[in-house]
């Protein structure tokens, strides 16, 4: 998902630049993941008060994608940070989700995470009504200039670029199947990055993304994948929690699949080449530290390959040609070091 703020927010342009330093947004120091979080842990431990955190997510907690990435992150830190976590998943109906978010806010939760860009317009309305509650909204580049909204996003175009390059090298038909939900936020970034990466290897390759119009409709994704296959595509990728549909097709036709948001190996052990994985833990740690420090929002965080918030996980179950693996490693390093500039 991504922002949908009516008023163009300057920080919304954040993802444009990739190097952490250049980012207008507050991003954890490169080494943040290990020591910094330890520090945060310390501060968390010292604060006796448990923090009440609510997560409202559009799909199932175990969707192997968008929602699960956040759930896992929460679980990984809640002990250390003394969090009391409540989760409402499958809130794909925006109006219902709005009510859920609102009732969490009114029930004295300290942090309400609205995990889905479609919730943005709701937060924009609710945040002012609950000034003492901190809201986190992702994936989005905008806080609506609200003092109690944190925004978080993912530069999924980076992993997309790497995987696109690999896909181009694996494809013999030179037709790639790329499926997205709606041309928005990390989905759009991933899809664009993927095609850019593919073209960087083979400018002539066909990489026409199809957007199904739905984050949740599994069968639409399956149908889109089927249609791609019937039109000669021999490598598939997709983003959103509905990809399981497409993965089914990849598995049935035994085609390589590239995942994003979370690992999807379990869905097709021999077809998933690699997955770009979001790790929101560092960001959550920062947000919680901020809240304990009395700051309820106003910052935008971004996970990148560079800051360890994104990692490419290779699937041992797929025997990847050495040259492809090498190319991938080279790109990852390049992007991390800011040498390779991933276009938007």
């Amino acid at each position: 998902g991504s922002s949908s703020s009516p008023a163009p927010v300057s920080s919304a342009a954040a993802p444009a630049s990739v190097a952490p330093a250049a980012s207008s947004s507050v991003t954890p120091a490169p080494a943040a993941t290990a020591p910094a979080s330890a520090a945060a842990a310390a501060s968390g431990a010292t604060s006796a008060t448990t923090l009440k955190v609510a997560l409202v997510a559009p799909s199932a907690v175990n969707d192997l994608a968008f929602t699960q990435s956040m759930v896992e992150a929460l679980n990984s830190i809640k002990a250390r940070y003394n969090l009391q976590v409540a989760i409402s998943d499958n809130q794909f109906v925006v109006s219902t989700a709005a009510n859920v978010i609102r009732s969490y806010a009114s029930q004295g939760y300290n942090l309400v995470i609205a995990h889905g860009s479609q919730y943005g317009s709701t937060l924009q309305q609710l945040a002012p009504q609950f000034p003492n509650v901190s809201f986190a909204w992702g994936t989005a580049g905008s806080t609506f200039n609200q003092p109690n909204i944190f925004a978080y996003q993912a530069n999924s175009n980076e992993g997309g670029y790497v995987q696109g390059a690999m896909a181009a090298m694996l494809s013999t038909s030179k037709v790639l199947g790329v499926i997205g939900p709606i041309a928005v936020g990390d989905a759009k970034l991933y899809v664009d990055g993927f095609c850019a990466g593919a073209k960087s290897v083979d400018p002539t390759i066909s990489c026409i993304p199809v957007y199904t119009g739905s984050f949740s409709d599994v069968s639409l994704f399956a149908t889109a994948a089927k249609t791609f296959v019937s039109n000669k595509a021999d490598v598939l990728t997709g983003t959103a929690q509905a990809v399981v549909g497409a993965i089914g097709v990849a598995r049935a036709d035994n085609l390589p699949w590239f995942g994003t948001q979370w690992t999807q190996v379990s869905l097709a052990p021999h077809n998933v080449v690699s997955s770009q994985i979001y790790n929101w833990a560092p960001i959550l740690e920062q947000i919680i530290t901020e809240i304990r420090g009395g700051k309820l929002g106003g910052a935008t965080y971004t996970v990148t390959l560079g800051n360890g918030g994104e990692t490419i996980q290779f699937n041992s179950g797929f025997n990847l040609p050495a040259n492809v693996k090498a190319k991938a490693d080279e790109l990852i390093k390049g992007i991390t070091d800011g040498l390779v500039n991933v276009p938007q």
Partner: protein
Amino acid sequence: MLGWLAIPSALLGALVLGAVMMLALGANPLTGYRALLVGAFGGSYALGSTAFQAAPLLLVGVGICIAFRANVFNIGGEGQIAMGGLAGAATALAFPELPSVVLIPLVLLAGTAGGAIWGAIPGFFKAQYNVNEILSTIMLNLVAVQVMNYLLAGPMVDHSQASVGGLIPETQLLSRNAWLPILVPGTQLHLGVLIAVLVAIAAYLLLWRTTFGFRLRAVGLSRDASAYAGMPVKRTIVWAVTLSGAACGLAGSILVFGSISHRMVTDGSLTGFTGSAGFNGIVVALFGGLNPLWTIVSAFLFGGLIVGGSALQVATGVPSDLVTALSGIVVVLVVSLEYLRRRARSQSTALAAFGGANPPTLRRGEPPPAAAVGGDGA
């Protein structure tokens, strides 16, 4: 006499089955139902949310009552709601500057008109070409969802998103002047709720106190006899479905301008916008004995069920789909018990009740048309 008990006992039966389901899913029914009750009716905020959910249900329910009395089974509520929402939103986008006193009535009327048109089509087809309404309304739902997705992703989309490279199919934040004012601060109880209740009362008077209502019910019970009596049968049918659609359209408008986000958003499905009000409204109307006044009561009941549903989910981890399943069971039980009630009643023919304030029963006053569905024609 069972008549009295038919509906309460249906509810009871549903709750028992619900408890069984919760047990089966390893949740404690008592915890679940307590959470549901508190979530729905515990405190002013909860009550406000319940009313908030009840408003669209009530309007759709009223629409169902009207159509049903004319022997038309309108299951196109979903589409009519969407069309109402779109019409309302478009109006607000077109005249954002108008003052509230003008703009609010205007957007509500626009929504009503939108739904009315979407209802008039199947009405006309049924009256003129004898096209079964179940089918045409369902088809129009399928058309409506696509039209909605198209408009919200294209012509009506919030262009300011472009700046952040996104295109969520939703309108921009709609003019503040069109927002339905909150009646009780700190709750979600907005003007729409009041309007819905007034509409229900008006519908009751229309059906049982006016010549138009008399004609509508006569046509519903016997097209032949009505035609013989010189009534304009076809026109009456078209009107009935149009009014039904109008009520649904108004619900759509209220959904938009009473919403928290004050935008119209789609996730690609009708449910995403309507929250299935188009179908739940049928349940509500049925539970209200197809009588607008009792429908008010049942709308708040089911509104509470929906609100409490999410509370139940948080408390027990049982998905709020349980509520949908339960309302389904309620419907089945009501219509089933209705037969036993009819039998019980015919034991004393004197009880051929008419109008009046007899307790809620499915067939209040004269029964609604026997085969609204079997209806006439293909």
